Each structure stands twice: as C-alpha cells, then as structure tokens.
C-alpha cells in the first residue's frame, strides 16, 4: 500500500478535502458556526484553481439545499454543509432531496438548537433527520470525516440506492480540532469512486419528463415504499463499500457499528461521535481493574445497525446507551430505538440510558466511569432515561 502524506487538518478542513478529492462539481454554500470553515476552505480550493467546481453563494440554507437539489437533478456531483439552525431552516428541502431520490452528500456539524444561543455540540439537530430518507453517518475524528464523505458518494450514487447521504461530526470537538489526516487523492480513488458522469440526470431535454406531479395516492405510497426498500438494501451496500474502502485506505473502523473490546464484555457502552474517545479511555481504565466493559460506537444510524445491535444484545448482560440528545416527553433517541429492536427480537438485555453532553456540556472519561459505576452499583435502573451532568450529578426521569 502506498505511503501517503498526512496533513494536519481540522474536521471541517478534512471535509473540504474530501469534497475536493471526490471531484464535487457544484457547492451551494451558506455560513453557520461551526460549519463555516468547511465552505471557506472549499472556496479557497476553487479560487486557487485546485478544484474545478461552481460555488453558489446561497441566500439561505433553504436555498443552499434547493440549489443542491437542482444541480443534482441536472446530473452534477454536489456537496453542501450546515449545522443546527441552518439544518432546521433547510429542513423542507432535506426531505425534498430524499423524496426526489437525489444522490446529494452533505456535511452536518452538530450544534445545539436555541434558544438560548449556543454554538456547542449536541445531536438533536442531526437526529431530526432520522425519518427523512437520508442515509446518516456519524464520524468521531477528522480522518473519519474525510473517509466517510468519500464513501458517502459511492453509496449515494449506487443506482440501487439513489438516496442522499448525511455525514455528521461534532461541532468544535471535531470540526475545529486539528489532527493528522491522510488525504487519499482522486487519482488513487479513481477506481473506487466512479466518474460523476455516471450519475443519471433527471433533467434532460432529450428525454423530457415531469418530476413531482400530484400523484395517485397509492403510487405515492409505493414511492415511499421504494425509499424504504432502498434503505433496507443500503445496509449491505454500505458494508461492501466500507470493505472496499478499507482495502484502499488500510484503515478499518468496523462498519455500521465500530466496536471496541466487546468480544468478552458483559457491559457494552453505546456512543456516537466525539465523546467515544473519552469512553474508550474509561474502558481501558476499567479493564485494568478487571471490569469487562466494551464500546459500540454508532457509525451509521440510518439504516439502523439492526443485526449488529442484536448481536450485542445477545453477547452482553447489559447495555449503557449514552444519548447526546433527547426526545422530549420520552427519552434518549438511540436507547429507545435499540429497545424497540430488542423487543422485536425477544432480547431482554437491560438497557440503561443516560442523557448527557447536551448543549455542549463536557463528558470526560471520568464521567463514563461514573455512569458505569452507577449501573454496576445498582444506583440507576434500566428505565427510561437519566439526566447525567459532568462531574456526577444525575436525575431520574420522574
């Protein structure tokens, strides 16, 4: 395998490099903290001639996604990125992109939703997309941001899938932290990622079709059904794409779930995003003390890693699911999805749920140890959810 040069890049710059090496052709942009440096870097690439793409300075995120939809329908390879309020502002068009079956790839730099104004990370903005029809992936470091965006194009443009793909990473913790990143050039990726001209344009004057007409209701339901079928199909496509990419990159993060020391674990902590690194540190320390703990980091949340979670449910005695989000009036989004899945498969492994790290609050490795000890010492029960604050303060759902 070729030895590649490593660059010191922030998560956001890694995203910009990925869009460049993926030979993206149209980039609608609209600034929002903490996404802004992604599009700044892309403009720099285009204006210096390093990248041949059209930048559209959109008047809003809604327009940015609309422009992405137009460009993708015309057959171009498209990238855009946003965060938080920007994602909510473009939300109508996010659904439109999926329902129009357009292979758009977008970056989502997670950030709490106001008020009050808050630029730090939590995951409620990103998880608002879970019913939209997008394939959704979450990176936990800058290298993975680069890798997932490259893979996202291959997944999105697969004719059996034709769905947009969202790649998320935590605001500031990943977006603005610099790490060594191995950039794989588009020459080296040429066999992996097909030429953008393989994307079938929908808008073609030689084949005039009307898209989006008022349907017969049953046809519309069938159309929604076809999105479900493609999403179900996506699991195996994603696994295959990741395998192929691993053979080029020499990296192996696992696939829909990234597991760490789960083989003999009786307790598995489930996380998503940047705090997974702190969880690993805690696990290493707990292992030194003889505790059999492992980590499962969610890398792909749509389609949901069903067989992966079933396996964990069968090998572990308990799951501790850390949700950096909450569905008001119910509990942690990930925990409740896993619970629903376990019920379907008659798995009665207890699931403990902590809501933590919201609004950008710190979650240290010590906090993971604390949460583990709360479970071990039976101070918390496998009931709805507990609010856990950095340092050890916690509250049950009552």
């Amino acid at each position, binding site marked *: 395998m070729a030895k590649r040069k490593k660059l010191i890049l922030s998560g956001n710059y890694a995203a910009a490099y990925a869009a460049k090496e993926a030979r993206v*052709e149209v980039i609608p942009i609209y600034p929002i903290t903490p996404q802004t440096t992604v599009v700044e870097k892309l403009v720099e690439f285009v204006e210096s001639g390093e990248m041949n793409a059209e930048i*559209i300075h959109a*008047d809003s995120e809604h*327009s940015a996604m*609309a*422009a992405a939809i*137009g460009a993708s329908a015309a057959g*171009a390879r498209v990238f855009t990125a946003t965060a938080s309020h920007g994602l909510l502002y473009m939300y109508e068009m996010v659904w439109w992109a999926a329902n129009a079956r357009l292979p758009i790839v977008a970056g989502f730099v997670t950030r709490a939703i106001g008020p009050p104004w808050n630029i730090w990370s939590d995951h409620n903005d990103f998880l608002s997309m879970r019913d939209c029809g997008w394939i959704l992936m979450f990176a936990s470091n800058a290298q993975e941001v680069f890798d997932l965006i490259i893979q996202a194009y291959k997944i999105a443009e697969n004719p059996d899938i034709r769905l947009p793909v969202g790649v998320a990473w935590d605001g500031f913790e990943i977006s603005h932290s610099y790490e060594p990143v191995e950039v794989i050039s588009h020459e080296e990726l040429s066999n992996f990622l097909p030429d953008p001209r393989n994307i079938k344009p929908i808008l073609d004057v030689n084949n*005039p079709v009307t*898209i989006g007409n008022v349907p017969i209701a049953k046809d519309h339901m069938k159309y929604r059904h076809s999105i479900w079928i493609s999403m179900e199909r996506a699991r195996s496509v994603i696994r295959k794409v990741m395998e192929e990419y691993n053979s080029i990159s020499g990296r192996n993060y696992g696939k829909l779930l990234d597991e760490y020391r789960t083989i003999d674990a009786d307790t598995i902590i489930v996380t998503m995003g940047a705090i997974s690194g702190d969880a690993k540190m805690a696990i290493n320390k707990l292992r030194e003390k003889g505790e059999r703990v492992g980590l499962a980091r969610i890398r792909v949340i749509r389609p949901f890693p069903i067989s992966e979670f079933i396996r964990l449910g069968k090998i572990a005695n308990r799951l501790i699911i850390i949700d950096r989000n909450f569905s008001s009036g119910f509990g942690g989004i990930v925990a409740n999805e896993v619970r629903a899945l376990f019920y379907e498969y008659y798995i009665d492994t207890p699931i403990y749920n902590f809501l933590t790290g919201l609004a950008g609050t710190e979650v240290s490795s010590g906090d993971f140890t604390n949460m583990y000890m709360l479970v071990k010492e039976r101070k918390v029960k496998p009931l709805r959810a507990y609010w856990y604050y950095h340092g050890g303060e916690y509250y049950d759902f009552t």
Partner: protein
Amino acid sequence: MILPKIVEQLGTDEFAFSGNPACQGCGALLSLRHILKALGKNTILIVPAGCTSIIAGLGKKATFNIPYMHMAFAASAAAASGVSRAFKVLGKEDINVVVWAGDGSTFDIGFGTLSGAAERNEDIIYVCNDNEAYMNTGIQKSGATPTGAWTTTTVKGRVGYKKDLFRIMLDHRVPYVATASPAYPMDLARKVKYAASLKGFRLIHVLNPCPPGWRFDHKLTVEIAKKSVLSGAWILMEAEYGKIKLNPPSSTMLEERKIPVRDYLLMQGRFRHLTEDKIMEIQKIIDENWRVIKHILISQKE
C-alpha cells in the same frame, strides 16, 4: 395560406397540451403556452407550488412536453441556480433554465431566494405568473394583491400597496427585466425570445387575469388583460441593464391613459364593492406610478 402573425412567428409546435386541469379562461396557461412556444424544446421548467402544480398534470398525466421539475414554494430560483450551474459544468449552457412562479412565491415566500439569484446574476429566466393573490389555495391576499381588491383574507378590500417588482428587480442591476400581458402575445413572445438571447438573470413579470380569483366570466380573460394595460394599471415595458423602455400600447399612454381605471376595475367581482372614493384613490395610485415612470424616462434621456 395566410397564417396568423402569431403562428408565423411562433410556429405550430406546442409544449403545453390541451386537456389539462387548468380552469377555463386561465390567463396564466395562455401566457405560459406562448412563452414555451417562444423558447422551444431546449428548455427546462422549474415551478414552485401554485396553480401550475396542478395544471402540470394529475397522476400519470403530463401537460408539458419539456423537462419539468416541481419545486418547493420558496425554492425555485435557488433550484434553478443549481440547475444552471450544473449545466455550466456539464457544458449544456445553451439550455434555457426557466422558473415559472406565481406571485405568492415571487413576492412573498420566495422573495429572498429570488433576490439572491438575481444578485448573483444566475443564468436563468424567471417568469412571474402574477394573478395578484394565492389562487391555488383559494384566493388569499399576497404581496402582489392590488389596493382595494377583495380576497378571502382581505374581505373588506386590500389595505396597502402592491410591491413594485419591476423596479425592485431593476435595482438588482440584472441584464433584463420586462412586463407582459397575455392580451399582447406578440409582445410577450418577443420579450421571451429576446430574454433567451441574453445571458445572466432575466425576469419577465406577466399579469395574468384569473377568472375564479378576480371574479369574472372566463370568456373575458383577454379583454380584462387588455383593459389592465389600456387603463394604465399594468404598464408594458422592458429594461435592459436598467434602461427602461415603454412598449406599445403603453408607450403612447405617457401623457394620458386610454381608459379610466374604473372600466378595468368594475369588470371584476373582486373590485365590485369599491366606493367612488376608493376608485378615485386607485386612479391616483396609478397616475402617481405613471408620474414616476415619466420622471425616470426623462432622467434617462439626460
């Protein structure tokens, strides 16, 4: 055989088929038919929510014989920007990327998007299909509803003024802005063809009478459209790079309008409630608008 002038100019190809779900006497479809004939088959149409979302065909039917993309209400100018830029990358710059958007979309919900596309000078033709209210949802007031007009959300008549889209777009310093009317199809077709010959952002604002929304018999569409122009309520004009030029018959009406606005207003149920005083007030608004246009034309000569 002597062909009518319009057939001679625009040929017999049709891009909007008959048998579609438009209302009888729909002014918008009449305009759109001529616009598409003027543009020809090398055209892509992007249409936000509105009457044309229905007219385009229900179920498996398609009214338009060109690529047609339905778009979200506020998004058409941005989506067209995306299409146009993609065509630039793909070397398909000769294709007309056309937005056909109602006044609700243009004046209200998509106004920022429109302004953004104009300010970026995107290579698109934006046609505003203005029927002066949200007609597809059932006649609600928009930013284009004229003073005094009844709608279901202005039951005592619209208070305030219609936005001046022509001048707002002029201030974006775009290559071409024009107004048109389905009563003057040759003027409309000429403007569309001329717009298509230019590059950059072009806007054509068409005032299309709406029989159910304006409350008149559908056989009167063209007559009412004509009266909108002859009364001076609607001015046929165009501006290339900001330089305004009036077109006939408006060009002969600078000093005096052909008919009082009363004749135009009282043909329509939406104005039937107006008092004499209110009609006079509307006449004054129109006269004032002409005074401004006259002032601009004089200052252009200097």
